[in-house]
């Protein structure tokens, strides 16, 4: 091999360029539909979103159970029939209830669009919540829950959310087996009536959008009376537990799960992009400080990461890993050491350059293809933001300097405020 051929190729600047904008189309009854038209295959993805997440529930499991029961029988179809039709038309649907939002997303081949819209309308607006199916679901959910209770990473995560958001707040509340006995059809109907209303719905359509899609949406969802937006929500107090260190014992565990975290700012805060960059350096990519130290230098773990996430009423950051019992203490000490290092010593130029380009590359991936664009759109839209958030983010990535990162580490990673959870 000649030498010249081995010379490292020049690296060209990575840039996000222009983000494809979603086009807003409003149904006759006012429901907003966001259209993202691109893609190579004859597919579309549709997401129907409601503010019907956990934050709206007055008892544990109500939001998720209402959501899961939507496809367990409607006015026109039994649960078995609904599911076999969805499968017959080759559609992949997913119901979900998160902390703030809930709804359904479906990926389908264009030629079955009309059939699927009819089924989605049944699922979202005409559910029956049959008691027999509800009881069966709760039994199943209890058995899934019991398996999850045996996993150290679940034990630690549940405890962390309780520790940072409090025992009563829907963001933090832990489940107990008795919660699975507390559901009944009328609770679900009430919740559904209040929170699955067209007046509160938004639709995001992405993929190869055929002509006529918008008018079909109007036929199936635009004629409905929008209904009222519910305004009688309970307001919960969010309060972190005083005790910062909690250990949950799990006899016989080979590994200990570690979660270190705290509540933090969300996407609406001007410091958020900077905090995300700081998080990337700490534990947000494969060459992060935590990965280099705890996996690649010490071999204590298969993986360690840190993340920053946004919620409507708060945000949180968490460092997560699983390690052999004998390495638990050393790992925790190293985590704090890395945090303190970021607070004291400015990040070097080479490292910052890598992080900048890595994040810019990630952003290109975040907008690669219609479904990715739709996800990225949703994750700003739900905070009342738009693509200008991403342009601000890019600008911050390109201009942030080491001192700013040090200052952010001091502000947002105050070690006295971090909750330290271990399970194992």
């Amino acid at each position: 091999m000649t030498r010249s051929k081995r010379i490292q190729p020049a690296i060209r600047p990575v840039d996000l360029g222009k983000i494809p904008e979603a086009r807003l189309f409003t149904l006759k009854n006012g429901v907003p539909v966001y259209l993202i038209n691109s893609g190579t295959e004859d597919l579309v993805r549709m997401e129907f979103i409601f503010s019907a997440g956990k934050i709206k529930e007055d008892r544990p499991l109500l939001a998720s159970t209402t959501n899961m029961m939507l496809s367990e029988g409607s006015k026109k179809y039994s649960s078995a029939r609904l599911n076999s039709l969805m499968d017959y038309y080759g559609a992949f649907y997913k119901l979900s209830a998160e902390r703030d939002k809930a709804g359904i997303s479906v990926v389908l081949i264009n030629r079955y669009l009309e059939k699927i819209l009819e089924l989605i309308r049944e699922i979202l607006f005409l559910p029956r919540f049959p008691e027999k199916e509800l009881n069966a679901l709760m039994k199943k959910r209890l058995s899934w829950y019991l398996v999850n209770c045996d996993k150290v990473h679940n034990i630690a995560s549940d405890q962390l959310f309780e520790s940072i958001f409090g025992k009563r707040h829907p963001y933090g509340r832990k489940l107990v087996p008795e919660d699975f006995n507390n559901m009944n059809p009328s609770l679900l109907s009430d919740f559904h009536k209040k929170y699955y209303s067209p007046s509160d719905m938004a639709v995001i359509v992405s993929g190869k959008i055929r002509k006529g899609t918008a008018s079909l949406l109007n036929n199936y969802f635009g004629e409905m009376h929008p209904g009222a937006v519910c305004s009688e929500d309970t307001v919960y107090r969010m309060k972190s537990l005083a005790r910062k260190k909690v250990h949950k014992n799990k006899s016989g565990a080979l590994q200990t799960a570690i979660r270190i975290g705290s509540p933090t700012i969300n996407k609406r805060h001007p410091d958020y992009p900077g905090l995300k960059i700081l998080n990337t350096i700490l534990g947000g990519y494969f060459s992060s400080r935590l990965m280099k130290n705890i996996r690649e230098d010490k071999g204590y773990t298969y993986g360690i990461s840190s993340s920053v996430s946004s919620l409507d009423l708060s945000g949180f950051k968490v460092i997560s890993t699983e390690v052999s019992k004998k390495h638990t203490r050393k790992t925790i000490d190293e985590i704090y050491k890395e945090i303190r290092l970021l607070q004291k010593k400015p990040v070097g130029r080479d490292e910052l350059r890598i992080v900048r380009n890595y994040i810019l590359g990630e952003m290109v991936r975040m907008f690669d293809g219609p479904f990715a664009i739709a996800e990225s759109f949703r994750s700003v839209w739900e905070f009342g933001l738009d693509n200008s958030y991403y342009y601000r983010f890019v600008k911050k990535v390109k201009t942030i300097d080491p001192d700013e990162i040090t200052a952010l580490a001091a502000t947002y990673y105050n070690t006295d405020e971090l909750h330290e959870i271990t399970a194992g």
Partner: protein
Amino acid sequence: MIKYYRFCLENGLRVLVHEDKSSPLIAMNILYDVGSRDEDPELTGLAHLFEHLMFGGTSRIPDFDKPLQLAGGENNAFTTEDITDYYITVPETNIETGFWLESDRMSDLDFSQKNLEIQKSVVTEEYYQRYLNQPYGDALLLLRSLAYKVHPYRWPTIGREVSHISNVNLNEIKEFFFSHYAPNNAILTLTGNITPDRAFILTNKWFGPIGKRNVKQRKLPKEPVQKEERRMDAERDVPASAIYKAWHTGPRRSKDFYVLDLITDLLAGGESGRLYTKLVREKKLFSEINAYITSDIDPGMMILHGRLMKGVDIHLAEESINQVIRDLKKRYPSDNEMEKVKNKFESSVIVSNSNILNKAMSLSYFELLGNTDLINNEIYEFRKTNKRMVAEVSAKYLNEENCSTLYYKSTRKD
């Protein structure tokens, strides 16, 4: 239709290119024709451990990840019983960095003792995290050892036991590299924003100079035909008992493959699958149940497993599974049900092909199978299956004497 170009370098490297201008990225996938089936029975887990070492840098490029991250790229890898697959996605302008990195680590590696020791420890933690410290985590490991007596599929990719991983030494690692990592044992696929011409020029420039190597000939013991049913009981501290069943099937290239795939879709495709409908929804015997084929290149398995609801007798639960299986052999599925699983299969292929990285992985794998056109023909192959074939293939494979059953019993009292 997915259009692709294929060429082969003098050193034996096979290259596939599919241009998709809709993406700002390029996916680069390198499949090495080596997996855990190529391991010594006393040194299992080596192929996967080796995959970790491929990220340890070389004498010329001490850190694999950083230059790629600097180029805005992302990468990862996985190991199966049959293959080891490395992939990168990177903005189109910086694809040459990918070529530089991948060709470098194909040339040779920096085998350092320190890196080996650390990755042994990382993989041991992976073994705990993914298998031994998870409820039911060892079940498929046990099932595999019950179903296979001779063929290397009897051990899992992670290794038969943790001690195999800790016993590997540097010489064994080097030997593994030079006998399996070679241009003539690899398939390079590029998809996304790249023209075939550009791919051709760059591949020649970066991979062309790497010499052909003597790849170890694969001589694997053939698994003898199973003649009687096998059973195993395991007792574990888990919340509920579970049943695992495995039937031997044909190889990936067998004509029965898509029929078996369709059978598992009838059984467990989506919420409307027969197992879920009958045993979870109607009879309420299981909290979850699943069936799939392993898709291995050598004769593989159809696996079925379910977790029991509290208080359900395990024999009764097994009998209910057997009933569903008997029904498959006895009664033809309805036209509607056949059409349903075929439509669903078609959508899943289309969904998978909407992503450049999936397309790159599929192309590489189909090329290895010797039938690259499957990228476009798979739906047709699947559609060819009819209900008579379903009954015949069920009768051929899904028999007691061809089956291994694991009772994974909960010891928990409450």
